[in-house]
Structures are given as structure tokens and as C-alpha cells.
């Protein structure tokens, strides 16, 4: 076991800095934004899943009293053949623009076609109905295997499959094919005594954040564009706006409002450019809000997938080979998370021979957006079910089987990286020893299942600056949207360095003009990377304060020591000052102290989780009730344990929803028939037991405090764990998500 470091602030549970504003309802979200002369925008959306746009006639709408402007794709700069650089790789600019306002084709029901700005939202809505759009309706392609058929209708006439560096001759709905290879797959299966091969299907699911997308835009007469919105990253909004609008980045300021959830779905822009276009045309501030149906039909989701998994093991329980075919729906434009799914699928295991093929396939559904460990949950549903089946076949305890084959430091993943110190085995051990796992489970129709999951986490750039106040507190300025308590977890890292309480830090999340570049709150990176920047900025403050103390005491800087919030002289001279007292003396020692840091830390350190679930199946109705749930996870170091627990619980709940009821239900025309929270069934508190959490701490060598990102991996195991528990309860393997009551009844042969 690694040595336990003693911390004063880290590992405690202070009240979050944004807590009072949020619980009193005073926190300002995008929809709360108001300014003089504000106009209201509304987006007209395609009623067809696949159609050519023949013409758009806005004359009737323009004549409607109260209407101030109407925009269509024609108001966007010409994007043909341009490539946009969004920092994380090149993107076809036409795809990016067409998803904001369709130019030639509507590619999903809900695709934005035009937008109106009017003096109030009701007028804008009524005017939308007066826009005459002529469509040539085309047959929709709604499922990944169908889309891959050579005869399938094409979404993009110019899209050709990119496969392992080559581009195909003929257009196709398959945007790309990727492959990861390790060892010799044939030899691996030849070595195996038991081989299991299964096919899995997962449904289209939405991130389901409570707050719909919103944006208000204003152009000043000097050409300065300001956008207030709900986003996971103000800087990524700025980058996307500069590309989509072809407008200088220096003339765009993005102000992040509070955010009511994102889960990956608030990284892509939707209404932000639309608000900007309307603002430009009217010269007035314009606010555009989505409603829930807009959110379901026009944003997100994370894609449906078809997955084949084949794994082999020797009779003494050693995994020898693993192969998978992952076909993911990208939605209307390329960019499904199949790549991430391919990185994660077999990562928890040390397997010598692996072959992974992934396909990114366009279909007539909204362009997919990241969702908490994107791609990994789909993938783990396949692999973790097969792992369970192998363990049963071999008569080895399912957790023991994972320990026997678990990845450790030095193991190379099929996609290349070699693991540093990781805590997979520790997370499985924690589950195995947990009273939940050791308790008896034998009632009729009750089942217990386990599954593990991996998410690689990301680092990327973050900037923080800290100024010292004369009363011994600090103001901490950061650019990371606070979705899950990161103001607190970042502030705590600075507080630890400076030996002050968390409450002595005032963290603010500011706009893109007011802090250095900071990448999105996503990839479980914020407590890791922005926390790292806070650590470094605090070190900068500490160095400067040491210089001030040295100046006061007329000694060399090397002779000043800082420990436990106290500066002291170590050259024999009796001198001591607390952080608090020294901060009051900045004026006389040279003026204000501002520390800052910009980081791009490479060692994000992967996260592993193992879950145990007990459930009951109603054999008459097919309904599954979750009875008990325990999640273990390696957090590296839990800065604020309550928020780590919260992240784990939230991820588990979303995973349970995905497993049991959540899915986009489409009719034959490609219309989602359940675009509301009534029929898109996210679990309510009445559907859930208390989710028990166990935080395992195997410090990440890539972070000064050992932090690993924790936000995403907890969504990965639930569907597989639940499928495995259903098998335990009724002896039936469910291979399609969601495992909703009708699918359960079918699987049980009752209908």
C-alpha cells in the first residue's frame, strides 16, 4: 500500500462555495439573463428525419408583427470544404455549420432550419409556424447495421470511409474504420479452452441534464460579440463561434452562466451561433432558449451501437484473447465516441492477444455528443457480460476472475499506452470484501451481478490566477465550469498549499477575457487539471510571499521556510509570520501578490470502478427493481469525498437508467415519440436504493496530490452489472439495452 500523506484541507468536506447561491435560487443561469432591449429567438426545426431542403420562404413570418429578424443557413459564412480547428483535431467546417442551421439537407427530425427573433417568445414561436419550407422527403436510416448496408440511403453524398489511412472510392454512411491490434488473435483463441461470442445492441440515450440549452448574444457597435450561455467550456464555445461565424477570436467574449448539468452534452454549441446571427441582424441582444423536446430532438444524444464481443480463456481462468466489432451511430455527422469505446473495452484486463475494430456510422438522428465516459458504457455492456459468462462457465467467482486477469502497472493497452500505477485490482478487492458481496443472496427472482469499468480521463490545458487579500484570504480565478463541486475541489488544492482553510478561498469562474485558456469541464479533468493549475498558482503565491518575508526580515529567501501556514526564518533569527499576518503587510513590501499558472499535465491517470447490484425481477410484468447497489472506485485521492461520492452516485443512477428504461423510441418516419421526461424514463428517487460508495485511493503519480478524475467511470459498469444480475435472478442473458419490461417479457417467453 502506498504511504498515506497527512493533509489539512484535502480529504475534508467543507461546504461548497457556490452552495448558498444555488440552494437559495440566487445563482444566475442562462435563462435568468436579462438586459435592456432583449429580443427572444426561437428555432424552427425539421419535421422530417431525412429530407432535401428545396426552398425556405420567410416572407409571411417576416411580415408578422413583432418579428425583428429571421436567419437561415444562408446567413452563415460559406463553409464548403473548409476545415475547422477546434484544438482537439480538425473538423469538417460544413458539418459543424450545417448542424447549427441546415443548408441543403435536414438530417434528423429536430434539425434546425431557421430562427426568428421577435419582441417576445410567443411571437417568435408563432412566426416559426409561418416560415414555409419545401422539402423533398427522403427515406430515413435509423439503425447502424442498416446504415452500413451498401444499398442504404446515403446521408452525405460526399462522405467516403476512411479506413486505416486509406479513403474508399465510393460514398458510404461509414465515416471511418479504426483498428487496434495486440499479439496474435488467432493464436490467442487457439490457446483458449472456453470461447464465448455474443452480440449486443444498445439504445440511443440522452445526457438528460435538467437545464435546457440557452444563449444570449449581443454585438456592440464596435464589433465586439458577447455570448452568455450554459456550457461546459466557455473557451470551446469561443473556438466554435470563431470557426462557425468566421469571426476573429479576439472579438468574441463568452460568459459562462451557472450550469444545470451537462454530462458531455454542453460542449458542442447549438443555439449560441444562432443567437449571434440574430443579434447581428437586429443589432439587439437576443436570447434563444430550448425546451425539453428541442433538447431531446436537437442535442446530445449518446449513440446506439451494435457490438460483437468474443473472448477466450484457459480452463484455469487466464484470458488469452479478446476481439470486438464496435459499430456506433454517429448521428447525422461523423464523430461517434467509438474511438473511446475501443480504447476502453478490454482495458481492465491483461490480455496478450486483442483485436478491436470500430466503425463510425452516420444515421438520421441528432449528431451524437459526448456523454459521461462516452462509448465506454456501450462497450462494457458487451465485454463485462462476456466476462461474467466466462467466469460462470469456468466456475470461478466473477470478481476473483477479474483479479486473476486484472491490468496493473506496466501492462500495455491494445490501443498503445502502458499503464502507470493504477488501482483496478484494489477496486475489485474492495468490492470482494464488501459486506454487500459477502452477504447471502438467495431469494427467488432475486439476483446479484457485478461488473467493472475503465475510463482513461484526460488532462489538457487549465489556467488559474490567485490574488492575495489583506485579510489572509485569496481570490482564485478559474475558467472551469463548475458542474459537480469543482469550485470547492480546486479551491481546496490551493488552500492546502497555502495552509489556509478552504473557506478562505473565494473561487470565481470567469469569462474568456478574464482568465487564461482553460479546456472544457469534461473527460473527468477539472479537479485533476484545473486543480493542478491551482496547486501551481498557489506555489507561485507561496514563492512570492517567501520573498516578501525575506524582505521584511532582511534575510535571504532560502532562509525562509513555509509550513502549516506559517512563514519562519531558519537562519537562527527569531522571526515568524502566519499567512494571514503576512498578507496584511503586502503594501509595505512591494504591493499586491498575484500568482498564476497555466498547465497541460500529461498524467491524467485512468480510473477504474467495480459495481455490485442486487435486484428483483417481477416475472409477471418483466419489471426490474434495484434493491441494493455498491460502487467501488479508485479516486487516486479524493479531494472532497462528498463530491466524489456524489459523482459516483450520479453516474450509477444514469447507468441504471440507461440499463433499464432510457432510450429514444422512433417511429418508422424517424420521429422520436418520447421526447419528454414523461416518456423518456430517467429513474426517479423511488426507483433507486441508496447507492453505497467505497472510495479506494491509489494515488495517481501524475498529480501532486494523486488525483484521478472520478466523474465518468461510474456510469460504465451499471448496464453490464444489471444484466449479469438479471441472469443470476432468472437465468436469462439480456443482450439488448434498455432491459425494459417489454424486452424482459419477450426474453422470458411471456409475450
Amino acid at each position, binding site marked *: 500500500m502506498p504511504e498515506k500523506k497527512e493533509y489539512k484541507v484535502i480529504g475534508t468536506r467543507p461546504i461548497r462555495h457556490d452552495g448558498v447561491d444555488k440552494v437559495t435560487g440566487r445563482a444566475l443561469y442562462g435563462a435568468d439573463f436579462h438586459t435592456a432591449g432583449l429580443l427572444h429567438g426561437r428555432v424552427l426545426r425539421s419535421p422530417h428525419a431525412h429530407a432535401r431542403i428545396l426552398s425556405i420562404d420567410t416572407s409571411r413570418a417576416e411580415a408578422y408583427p413583432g418579428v425583428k429578424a429571421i436567419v437561415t443557413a444562408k446567413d452563415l459564412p460559406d463553409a464548403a470544404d473548409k476545415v475547422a480547428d477546434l484544438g482537439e483535431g480538425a473538423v469538417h467546417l460544413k458539418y459543424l455549420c450545417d448542424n447549427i442551421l441546415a443548408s441543403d439537407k435536414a438530417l434528423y427530425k429536430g434539425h434546425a432550419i431557421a430562427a426568428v427573433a421577435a419582441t417576445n417568445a410567443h411571437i417568435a414561436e408563432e412566426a416559426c409556424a409561418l416560415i414555409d419550407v419545401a422539402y423533398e422527403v427522403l427515406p430515413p436510416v435509423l439503425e447502424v447495421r442498416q446504415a452500413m448496408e451498401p444499398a442504404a440511403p446515403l446521408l452525405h453524398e460526399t462522405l467516403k470511409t476512411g479506413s486505416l489511412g486509406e479513403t474508399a472510392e465510393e460514398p458510404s454512411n461509414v465515416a471511418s474504420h479504426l483498428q487496434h491490434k495486440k499479439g496474435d488473435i488467432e493464436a490467442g483463441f487457439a490457446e483458449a479452452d472456453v470461447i464465448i461470442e455474443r452480440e449486443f445492441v444498445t439504445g440511443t440515450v440522452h445526457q438528460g441534464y435538467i437545464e435546457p440549452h440557452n444563449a444570449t448574444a449581443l454585438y456592440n457597435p464596435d464589433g465586439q460579440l458577447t455570448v452568455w450561455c450554459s456550457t461546459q467550456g466557455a473557451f470551446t464555445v469561443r473556438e466554435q463561434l470563431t470557426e462557425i461565424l468566421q469571426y476573429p477570436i479576439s472579438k468574441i467574449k463568452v460568459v459562462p452562466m451557472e450550469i444545470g448539468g451537462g454530462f458531455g452534452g454542453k460542449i458542442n454549441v447549438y443555439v449560441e451561433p444562432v443567437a449571434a446571427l440574430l443579434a447581428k441582424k437586429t443589432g439587439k441582444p437576443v436570447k434563444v432558449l430550448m425546451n425539453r423536446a428541442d433538447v431531446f430532438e436537437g442535442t446530445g444524444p449518446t449513440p446506439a451501437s451494435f457490438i460483437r464481443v468474443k473472448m477466450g480463456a484457459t480452463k484455469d481462468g487466464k484470458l488469452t484473447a479478446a476481439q470486438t466489432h464496435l459499430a456506433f451511430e454517429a448521428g447525422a455527422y461523423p464523430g461517434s465516441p467509438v474511438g473511446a469505446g475501443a480504447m476502453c473495452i478490454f482495458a481492465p484486463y491483461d490480455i496478450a492477444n486483442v483485436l478491436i475494430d470500430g466503425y463510425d456510422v452516420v444515421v438520421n438522428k441528432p449528431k451524437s455528443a459526448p456523454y459521461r465516459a462516452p462509448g465506454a458504457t456501450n462497450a462494457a455492456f458487451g465485454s463485462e457480460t462476456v466476462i461474467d459468462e466466462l467466469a460462470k462457465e469456468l466456475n470461478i467467482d466473477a470478481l476473483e476472475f477479474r483479479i486473476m486477469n486484472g491490468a496493473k502497472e506496466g501492462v500495455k493497452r491494445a490501443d498503445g499506452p502502458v499503464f502507470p500505477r493504477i488501482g483496478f485490482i484494489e477496486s475489485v478487492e474492495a468490492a470482494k470484501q464488501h459486506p454487500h458481496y459477502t452477504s447471502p443472496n438467495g431469494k427467488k427472482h432475486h439476483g446479484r451481478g457485478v461488473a467493472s469499468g475503465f475510463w482513461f480521463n484526460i488532462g489538457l490545458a487549465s489556467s488559474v490566477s490567485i490574488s492575495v487579500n489583506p485579510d489572509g484570504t485569496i481570490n482564485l480565478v478559474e475558467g472551469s465550469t463548475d458542474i459537480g463541486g469543482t469550485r470547492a475541489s480546486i479551491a481546496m488544492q490551493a488552500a492546502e498549499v497555502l495552509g489556509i482553510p478552504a473557506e478562505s478561498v473565494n473561487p470565481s469562474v470567469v469569462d474568456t477575457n478574464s482568465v487564461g485558456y482553460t479546456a472544457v469541464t469534461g473527460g473527468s479533468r477539472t479537479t485533476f487539471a484545473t486543480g493542478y493549475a491551482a496547486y501551481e498558482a498557489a506555489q507561485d503565491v507561496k514563492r512570492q510571499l517567501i520573498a516578501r518575508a525575506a524582505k521584511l526580515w532582511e534575510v535571504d529567501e532560502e532562509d525562509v521556510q513555509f509550513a502549516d501556514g506559517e512563514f519562519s526564518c531558519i537562519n537562527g533569527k527569531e522571526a515568524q509570520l502566519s499567512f494571514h499576518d503576512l498578507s496584511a503587510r503586502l503594501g509595505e513590501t512591494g504591493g499586491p501578490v498575484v500568482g498564476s499558472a497555466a498547465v497541460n499535465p500529461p498524467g491524467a491517470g485512468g480510473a477504474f470502478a467495480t459495481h455490485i447490484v442486487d435486484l428483483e425481477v417481477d416475472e409477471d410484468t418483466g419489471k426490474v427493481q434495484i434493491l441494493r447497489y455498491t460502487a467501488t472506485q479508485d479516486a487516486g485521492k479524493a479531494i472532497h469525498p462528498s463530491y466524489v461520492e456524489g459523482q459516483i452516485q450520479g453516474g450509477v443512477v444514469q447507468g441504471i437508467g440507461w440499463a433499464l428504461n432510457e432510450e429514444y423510441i422512433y417511429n418508422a418516419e424517424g420521429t422520436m415519440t418520447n421526447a419528454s421526461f414523461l*416518456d423518456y424514463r430517467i429513474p426517479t428517487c423511488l426507483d433507486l436504493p441508496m447507492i453505497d460508495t467505497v472510495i479506494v485511493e491509489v494515488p495517481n503519480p501524475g498529480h501532486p496530490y494523486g488525483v484521478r478524475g472520478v466523474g465518468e467511470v461510474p456510469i460504465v459498469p451499471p448496464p453490464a452489472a444489471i444484466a449479469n444480475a438479471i441472469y443470476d435472478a432468472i437465468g436469462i442473458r439480456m443482450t439488448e439495452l434498455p432491459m425494459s*419490461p417489454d424486452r424482459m417479457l419477450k426474453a422470458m417467453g411471456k409475450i
Partner: protein
Amino acid sequence: MQAFEYVAAQTVPEAVAVLKEKGQQARVLAGGTDLIVQVREAKRDVDWMVDIKAIPEVNVLTHDSQNGLRLGAAVPCYQIYGTESICESFPALVDATKIIGGTAIQGRACVGGNLCNASPAADCIPPLIVLNAICVIAGPGGEKELPVGAFCTGPGQTALERGEMLVALKIPQPSSHSSSYYLRFIPRNEMDIAVVGAGAAVTLDAAQETIVSARIALAAVAPTPLFAEEASALLAGREISDAAIDEAAAAAQAIARPISDMRGTAEQRTHLVGVLTRRALKGAIQRVLDA
């Protein structure tokens, strides 16, 4: 949301007059938990909302063993399950009023609104059918009565004619050794519309061994909630047994004509009719035995 005119009627004739004059353009506003939502989602085009909540007659709630229950059309759900004698005599109706929405919705949603909205999946309608409720209707021609089973004519369609409104529901006092039960199947434990609903009312003999009479009604398996007449009739005079209950469940399944939609498939619904009919009958019988 579209703009509309709002009228707070003070008397039944006043409401009736507006409804008659405006016809299709006007709708009665009771709790508004269906109507406002439908107008906001542009699923219903309404130019006149006629609020009836200020009218005394539609707020009446009286119950005695002589006259049974009189339930004004605008009495909210919470008042029903909040009245002890109603809970004792009409438990199926109480089951339904307790599962409509959450506490906030129950504070405003009415049984009358649930009926007049005429959803095939409405939770109150099967209980009203098995409890033999009578609709009291006011219109330009005065007052009339109609058995609840004849009230719904299609999804969102009722027997109400131009200018008519529901004033109250009358439910006769059940005889002794009677009880009732309503349940629905939903994928979650809250927040869903019934995939299938089933209500049952039973009267047992004094020895509590034989079913004297039974009524079964179903929701969400046809364009309107259904009275399962044959299934109900075949229980009369039968000894309480699984076999009798199974036969009734099969007869109820035979009349279901469900569709497949985002709430469930037709096969699933037909299957569930059997399951829920059994559970509703057993639930009602158990309530008699426990009383």
C-alpha cells in the same frame, strides 16, 4: 404558448352560455393539469378558457351511506383521499387519486378533469366504471345524467355536446362485503402514464367465500377505457378461487385491443391485462376479507 381569453364563470349557466357560444374554441378549465400542458405543447388549440373553479356546484363533496358520494367536477384529488369515509367505501378511486402525478398535481387535478380529458390511460376512469358512477351534465337544455361507461367515445372525445359541461359525479354506496381496487403497470415507480390499468370491484357473500358480483374495467388497451362485461359476469356466483380469477383475466384479455406506442407494445399490454386483472381482483377480495 398561444394567446387565449380567460373567463372565470361564477355559475353553471354562465359557463354553459360561453361554452355554447364559443363551441370548439372554448374549453372548461378545471385543475388545468391536462389542459394547460396541452395548450403549451400546441396539442390543443383553445381560444377561450372557461374556469369553473368558482362555481359552488362543482366544488361539492358529500358522502353518506344513504345517498352515496357526490363529487363535484372540480374537487381536487387530495380532498378525496383526505376523506376517511371515502377511503373506506371507494378504495379504487382513492388508489387512482393517490397515483395521479405527485403531491402538487394532486392538489389541483380533479377526477372530473381526468374523466373529461378522456385519455384511454386515465387512472380514475376504470375505478369510476367499476363503482357505477353517474355523470351529472349541465347544458343549454338543462341537466341530464349519463352512466360513466358511456361518457368517453374516443381518445380525447366525450359524449358532451356543444355547450355542455360536467357538474358532478354520483357514485352509489357499495353494499356490504364489497370493496374495490385499482392498479396500473408503469415501467418506473412514479412519473409514468399507465401502460395498462385495471380496476375491480367485488361484492362477496356474507360467508366471504363466494363472489356475488364483480366489475372489471381496463385502461390503455382500447381507444376508451373499457368495462370488461363478460369477464365481470362470469365471476358472479363463483367461489373465490384462482381458477375463477384466471378465467376472468382471460376474458378481460380477450376484449383488449391495444396499440403499440412509446409506452408499451400491443403484446405486452395484452399480457399485462391478464396480470393486472388478477392482481386487481385479488386486491379487491383481500380488502373485503381484511375489513
